[in-house]
């Protein structure tokens, strides 16, 4: 008997430990659920961490209004089958009531606008800990994020004033008005996520698997043709049909598809292991603008 856990078991146990610390030490936690694969894994882990109780905290979705319909269906189905309470923060409503102003260009991304809605929902909900699916392997600024990451009264992240995080001894103390973002998947990679999805048969929105879709090419990325994103003929863009899947899901205007034939989790794992382009590089138009794009958004209070 070697008494050894596999790397997925170690990662799972660590995430469960983190979530139980959150339930034990915070008054009103919430879990951010985008309908994407990371939040699907996060929710599965929350169910395991709380078992045999129901997940006692609220599930928050920030809806940009530009979501894939498949993802919204999936979200509603998950929420219903687990019997959890869903709170939706609508970016569209914040635009309609003039709280935030949308960039005038047609099909402009609402990625940055989400921060306002997210912070509003956190404040209105009185959440003192918000669980998110962020992973350190996603991006350079994230590599330095703590598992328990303190946000000030304005929801801002100060990378230079982070608390040292030692052993598994998480310091959850905070002043009123401050909150924590907690990232139980910090140490997971994209491949770990897929391996876990396969092992646990975690259901995902269909768009994660290869399907036919009308797309067009912009800046080297494949974007879906939809109500919020259309090819611009004057820029030489044109629609065509392709077999694609998504590596992340988000705002339809800035989440790109990759060409793929993978129709099962196992095939996605093989493609992921062979991939030569990073998840963000392949799929997120928003992070290509500058090297510090993610850091800047995070400082403002982004996910």
């Amino acid at each position, binding site marked *: 008997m070697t008494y050894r856990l596999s790397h997925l078991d170690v990662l799972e146990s660590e995430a469960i430990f983190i979530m139980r610390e959150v339930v034990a030490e915070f008054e009103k936690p919430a879990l951010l659920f985008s309908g994407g694969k990371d939040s699907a894994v996060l929710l599965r882990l929350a169910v395991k961490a709380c078992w*045999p109780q129901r997940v006692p905290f609220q599930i928050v979705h920030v809806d940009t209004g530009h979501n894939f319909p498949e993802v919204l269906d999936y979200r509603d189905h998950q929420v219903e089958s687990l019997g959890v309470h869903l709170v939706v923060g609508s970016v569209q409503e914040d635009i309609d009531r003039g709280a935030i102003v949308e960039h005038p260009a047609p099909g402009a991304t609402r990625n940055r606008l989400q921060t306002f809605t997210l912070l509003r929902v956190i404040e209105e909900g009185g959440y003192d800990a918000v669980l998110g699916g962020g992973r350190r392997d996603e991006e350079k600024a994230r590599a330095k994020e703590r598992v328990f990451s303190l946000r000030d009264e304005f929801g801002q992240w100060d990378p230079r004033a982070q608390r040292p995080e030692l052993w598994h001894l998480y310091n959850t103390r905070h002043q009123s008005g401050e909150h924590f973002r907690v990232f139980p998947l910090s140490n997971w990679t994209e491949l770990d996520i897929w391996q876990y999805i396969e092992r646990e048969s975690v259901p995902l929105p269909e768009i994660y698997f290869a399907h036919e879709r009308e797309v067009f090419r912009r800046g080297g990325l494949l974007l879906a043709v939809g109500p919020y994103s259309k090819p611009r003929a004057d820029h030489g863009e044109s629609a065509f049909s392709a077999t694609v899947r998504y590596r992340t899901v988000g705002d339809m205007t800035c989440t790109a598809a990759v060409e793929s034939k993978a129709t099962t989790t196992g095939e996605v794992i093989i493609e992921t292991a062979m991939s030569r382009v990073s998840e963000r590089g392949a799929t997120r138009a928003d992070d290509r603008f500058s090297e510090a794009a993610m850091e800047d958004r995070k400082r403002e209070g982004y996910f």
Partner: protein
Amino acid sequence: MELLRFATAGSVDDGKSTLIGRLLYDSKQVFEDQLEAIERSSLARGDEFTNLALLTDGLRAEREQGITIDVAYRYFATPRRKFIIADTPGHTQHTRNMVTGCSTADLVVLLVDARVGPTEQTRRHATVASLLGIRHLVLCINKMDLVEFERTRFEAVRREFEDFAARLEVTDVTCIPMSALEGDNVVDRSSEMKWYDGPSLLHHLEQVHIGSDRNLIDLRFPVQRVVRPIASSELRDYRGYAGEVASGVLEVGDEVMVLPSGFSTTVEAIETADGPRKEAYPPASVVVRLADELDISRGDMLCRPRNRPTSGQDLSAMVCWMADRPLRKGAKLALKHTTRWARALVKDVTYRLDVNTLHRDRSADGLELNDIGRLDLRTTVPLFYDEYRVNRATGSFILVDEATNATVAAGMLLRAND
């Protein structure tokens, strides 16, 4: 697949970023778009080659100042193991980063420049690694290309380091001659140093035996949460204790003692959402049910009646002080140990450790930022603990400033009368 966590450290310019960049690149963890981005940055900086060190540049302030400020975590895998790197910055003032990185590491990789040999910094890092209970140390003697790949130079540096390391508690020291820039002995064995018959760094990381580093003898199960799903009618009588097995092996049917109450009972079931299990060992997160209904809360601990942790309010510990404001005798701080919070009074600063010479300065009456020293503490409630050397999970604690809530110290408990 097994997980290995290691920390990397070295002085500025010893080649740590280059080494990590190369490990990631050669193990095919670098994606094309990331490579293109650093190719562009390399060009813009006027580098003559693609600077792999740029792969690990994180925050804007770090890029602007050309230094690393904070611990960064990086990931790669080979068919044998998955690796988590805690990449700790090299400046003297960042000892706290080294402590942070080591606290979750199985192994430490230290870099030295072959032309310079071990520096004060190297000794400091090795000392911190040893204090933090690291069993495996790898010294990468880098930039061998700049000393004509000469064996005598390697042997001289190695001897000097081993002489120092002999005074530490690290048992396994491996020295590897290397050129991170040219890739010699990083992933593949170097063709320039035929005289070296040891493994490449990656090969060593894949093979090093860490299984027996864990404590599988002393059962310790700190209760993280009491699970009582009273709202649900079919589970009305359910009462379980959720937690992570800190050490030892827990089996159904075992007789266990609950601290602080001292009552004994037997383990009725070990459960998870995936079903019951016969046993659990570190670091599994499980729910334990006991045969008797006892008064147990978060922060209590399960152990074996004949193998109990020390229980006490008067503690001795080595601590690394991490705050700008110095620590003085008489300070009152919050303390977190396993799943238990307490308050602690600093009764005495016994000595400050000079991490370069290992000299104990007994005249010290406080600790400054990045100092390491020994304290006597008194806590408001008893802690159930083991010596850090034999149990990292029950031998470690953090201190928190009650006014600012900042984490101000990392602590490693010593045996009561050491």
